[in-house]
């Protein structure tokens, strides 16, 4: 098998992967970096982020405020040492982006502008109109082009981590253009493969967000942490699931039900001030807003459409000028995809699966339990997001922990004097290849990729959606186990080598099945309600038993085992999460 020897392999060229690559190149230009991605870097889903990236910017704000908002927003499941580090690094990383040319929106005096965001006490969300992720990704990608040590392998689908003597020393990847399996030997590997929203049927996540890296690490023996926490964003377009950014509520947009009533006031989020009050009403946290929708729906106060029930997001009072200046993409998306001009009509919206709080278990240095293996970005769980991520924290997270992972991996690579033996890693790579070629051996089982995907999507939505019960989760766990078994009966129709998307989709489906099972089983075991994980049969938060991270470990055909680890609490004791007029 063709082998490329490098110092550090990065899997994923989204925001986190690119930031890691630049950090390595800057810390030691002699280190060779192989940056692998299944799509061209600028296609990575960071591109879709709209609203902004959080970091303290105003004089009247403080790191403590950002810390407190994040920890309470995460329902105290965040590791507080990690959050402290995160809020401290955030403004620096965002300033670094400015130095690299990111076209942040500005105030009239030329400073970087910030906007309010859900669950944030003071405006601290840096934005580039409503295409923040797009601009960050392109800025990072373009900046990365000046470092000759970053060698890109675009459209290389990574299938496996390669382990030698218990350490991760490379990856196996399919060169999509030729279909050939390639071996990358390295001293350290960083996974930056993004989230797994595609496990669910209705999501803001692009087709590529299939949890590949999570599954790779999981199968290699790293636990998946807090997988039961899946964020529903309250405002997606019906049908497509296209996101209407929280920035539109930050700018003053309101949510109303079928009576034109601002229903959030009925869910401890009021009073309904005419101006956007921070951490109240439409600027409450996402978990609360999505849950409020569910209750409105039960009460019959939503509006029915061919693509399911909706409520209305009304921006009309902002006026055309402000909408064009601050929310041009929102306007364009609404006109194009639901035929509604927000200047003239309210936008129909409904909750949509958006973000995976859980992920590859890492420590505060982005290290996993496997020597040589790091992870950063949405695929990782440090955890700064706890049970509910605050909007605009993750774009910052991928910068802070992307660069940390880069620097950490650079240290490992500099400390290791030699590469592992060729024959040892080749053996691992051959095993990876055998798994792929195995998929081509048709068994006549008659299962299809789209069929299994549909079954997975619907059982996850039914059993592990916004509200869950023991019964619903048990059903989903059983169904997912069956789907896992049925996967062996898939027949690939496409036998070609070149750009074989039938094969790639099968591999992605395999990853999603593993990730989905970790989500469902972790959710079943967490007998409490916290943040985005809401159980109708255990409605209270239970700090006694569950102020702990869940850790799912891979068990092949069997359901994963779930262990727990205490949350790191340094200075904020768990308390009630208070939003609306009652907050201090």
């Amino acid at each position, binding site marked *: 098998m063709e082998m490329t020897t490098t110092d550090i392999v990065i899997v994923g060229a989204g925001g986190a992967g690119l930031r890691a690559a630049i950090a390595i190149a800057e810390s030691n230009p002699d280190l060779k970096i192989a940056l692998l991605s299944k799509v*061209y870097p*600028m296609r990575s889903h960071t591109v879709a982020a709209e609203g902004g990236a959080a970091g303290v910017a105003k004089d009247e704000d403080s790191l403590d405020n950002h810390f407190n908002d994040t920890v309470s927003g995460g329902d105290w499941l965040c590791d507080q040492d990690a959050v402290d580090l995160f809020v401290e690094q955030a403004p*620096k990383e965002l*300033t670094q982006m400015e130095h690299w040319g990111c076209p942040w929106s500005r105030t009239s005096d030329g400073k970087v502008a910030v906007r309010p965001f859900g669950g944030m006490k003071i405006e601290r969300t840096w934005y580039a109109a409503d*295409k923040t992720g797009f601009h960050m990704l392109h800025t990072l990608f373009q*900046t990365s082009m000046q470092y000759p040590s970053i060698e890109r392998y675009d459209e290389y689908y990574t299938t496996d981590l390669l382990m030698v003597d218990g350490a991760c020393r490379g990856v196996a990847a399919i060169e999509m253009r030729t279909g050939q399996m390639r071996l990358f030997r390295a001293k350290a590997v960083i996974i930056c493969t993004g989230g797994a929203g595609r496990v669910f049927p209705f999501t803001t996540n692009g087709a590529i967000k299939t949890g590949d890296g999570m599954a790779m690490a999981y199968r290699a023996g790293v636990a998946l942490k807090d997988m039961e926490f899946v964020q529903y964003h309250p405002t997606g377009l019906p049908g497509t699931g296209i996101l209407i950014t929280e920035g539109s509520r930050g700018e003053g947009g309101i949510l109303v039900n079928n009576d034109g009533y601002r229903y959030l006031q009925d869910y401890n989020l009021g009073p309904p001030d005419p101006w956007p009050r921070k951490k109240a009403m439409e600027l409450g946290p996402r978990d609360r807003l999505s849950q409020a929708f569910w209750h409105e729906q039960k009460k019959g106060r939503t509006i029915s459409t061919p693509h399911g029930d909706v409520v209305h997001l009304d921006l009309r009072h902002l006026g055309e000028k402000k909408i064009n200046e601050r929310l041009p993409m929102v306007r364009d998306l609404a006109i194009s995809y639901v035929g509604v001009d927000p200047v003239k009509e309210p936008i129909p919206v409904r909750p949509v699966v958006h973000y995976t709080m859980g992920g590859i278990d890492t420590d505060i240095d982005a290290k996993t339990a496997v020597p040589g293996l790091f992870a950063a970005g949405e695929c990782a769980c440090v955890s700064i997001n706890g049970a509910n991520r605050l909007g605009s924290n993750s774009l910052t997270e991928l910068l802070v922990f992307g660069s940390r992972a880069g620097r950490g991996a650079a240290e490992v690579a500099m400390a290791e004097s030699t590469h592992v033996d060729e024959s040892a890693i080749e053996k691992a790579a051959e095993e990876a290849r055998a798994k792929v070629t195995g998929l081509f051996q048709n068994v006549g089982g008659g299962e299809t990729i789209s069929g299994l995907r549909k079954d997975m999507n619907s059982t996850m939505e039914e059993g592990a959606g916004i509200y869950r019960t023991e019964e619903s989760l048990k059903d989903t766990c059983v169904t997912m186990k069956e789907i896992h078994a049925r996967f062996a009966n898939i027949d690939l129709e496409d036998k070609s080598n070149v750009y074989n998307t039938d094969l790639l989709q099968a591999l992605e489906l395999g990853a999603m099945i593993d990730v989905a099972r970790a989500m469902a089983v972790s959710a079943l075991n967490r007998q409490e309600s916290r943040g985005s994980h809401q159980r109708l049969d255990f409605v209270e938060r239970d700090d006694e038993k569950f102020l702990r991270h869940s850790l799912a470990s891979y068990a092949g055909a069997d359901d994963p085992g779930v262990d727990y680890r205490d949350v790191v609490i340094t200075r904020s004791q768990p308390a009630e999460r208070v939003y609306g007029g009652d907050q201090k």
Partner: protein
Amino acid sequence: MSLRTFELEIMRYDPDKDSEPRFETFSVPCEEDWVVLDAVNYVKDNLDRTLSYRWSCHMAVCGSCGMMINGEPSLSCKTFMRHMPDKIRIEPLANFPIERDLVVVMDDFMDKLASVKPYLVAKEKKAVEDGSYLQSPAQLKKFKQYTLCINCTLCYSACPQYALGEGFVGPAALALAHRYNLDSRDVGRSARADVVASNEGIWECSFVGACSEVCPEHVDPAGAIQQTKIASTLDYFKDLITPGRDK
């Protein structure tokens, strides 16, 4: 929801099997609010698993799903079936080699993008601790439009000069160079001029404007090229007046 059936005539090419591209027709029942990409996904999921194409975001920002749709370079996720005739011809983007089916070879475009040094060259490196550069909304506005390129390459498919295959740097890459040249924080213009004002750069453009017409993001690369030409001409004359100026 009402369904309407379309005939999709899709270009197929598998270098492992086909000596040349061919067309294959699929009949697809489409919902009213579908885009062309939804119809293509229907083919893949229900009619032919071997069909290859790129897509990801389904919201016109990742730039991967460009195709020729009835002869026009288009983003398939933003081309609505309700505006389409009953028969639709779908081909890979013109002016690029075909890798397989609707997937084209992107190497040349990626090289061109990198060739214009699309990154900020600051006068002096500023420490993060020293905070951000000041930039007024007016200064930002000067280049903002040219930051909006999603690298979809539709403009390369529409460009008669790029079609000649003579190495023209092309609309998106030149617009990107212009973006950095116009940025108040940047001093890299002369470094970029090697490529931008070379034989394969701006002077090759015959100003047909097809690029700006197909651009889904209204970047107006033709305008960028025109402005760069003017700036370069001024440079040339300034050089005559004060030779060796700031090279």
